[in-house]
């Protein structure tokens, strides 16, 4: 996601501003190496949502998180997110209790499945959110993942 679009989303948030993003989105190539520092510095789900330009997000059954209920080790937690929402533009992974909330943020162009599978670090047992922007609206799914203590140390 390019920073300019986020900026628009942040200042606007309404229908008008969202409509304006559509054009900018397509010209995102040149800005592909932008990195949204403000969003990656956020320390709560609400702050991240705001930094990604959303005012509120609705829970949705059309967003599915595939992850283990219990992770044997927090250093590697496999997480897949699939959105069945039409016009899915963005999939972001948020980990509530990590030192910083936003883990990863994927732009899904048309022609690419609204599906992402990756591996993230979790500092402790936490709710994990999959945030989806589809047709300019914000949706999410949530799942608690328990992180256990491994090995003999600790």
């Amino acid at each position, binding site marked *: 996601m390019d920073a300019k679009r986020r900026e628009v989303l942040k200042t606007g948030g309404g229908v008008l501003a969202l409509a304006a993003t559509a054009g900018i989105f397509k010209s995102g190539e040149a800005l592909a190496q932008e990195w949204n520092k403000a969003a990656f510095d956020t320390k709560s789900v609400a702050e991240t949502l705001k930094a990604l330009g959303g005012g509120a997000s609705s829970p949705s059954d059309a967003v599915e998180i595939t992850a283990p209920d219990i992770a044997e080790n927090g250093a590697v937690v496999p997480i897949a997110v699939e959105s069945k929402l039409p016009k899915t533009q963005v999939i972001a992974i948020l980990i509530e209790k990590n030192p910083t909330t936003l883990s990863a943020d994927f732009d899904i*162009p048309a022609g690419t499945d609204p599906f992402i599978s990756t591996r993230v670090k979790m500092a402790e047992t936490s709710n994990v959110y999959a945030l989806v922007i589809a047709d300019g609206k914000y949706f999410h799914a949530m799942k608690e993942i328990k992180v256990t203590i491994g090995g003999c140390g600790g």
Partner: protein
Amino acid sequence: MADPMRIRANLTGDKVEVKVLMAHEMETGLRKDAGGNAIPAHFIRNVTVTHGGKTVLSAQWGTSVSRNPFLHFRFKGGRPGEKVTITWMDNKGDKRTDEAVIAGGG
């Protein structure tokens, strides 16, 4: 120089299934060494995947993507023999680009 990625791109039905492993520390910046000094953050911030000149996925990552990152996604429109190109760039400006040829069909 950063190590090459391991990329698998396979045509399954009408979609290209891409699985990639990247060799990177993904250091959070929150850990300390034995002397109590913070180890500086070092992590991939941007990943871009292109096919035929078109971006098929772009991502921004924070420090909590696991070390030696793994990424799996699917896109439409690729044919066997065509190339998928992946570039990552980290917070120190290091970059790595690798290509894979789309395999198979079936």
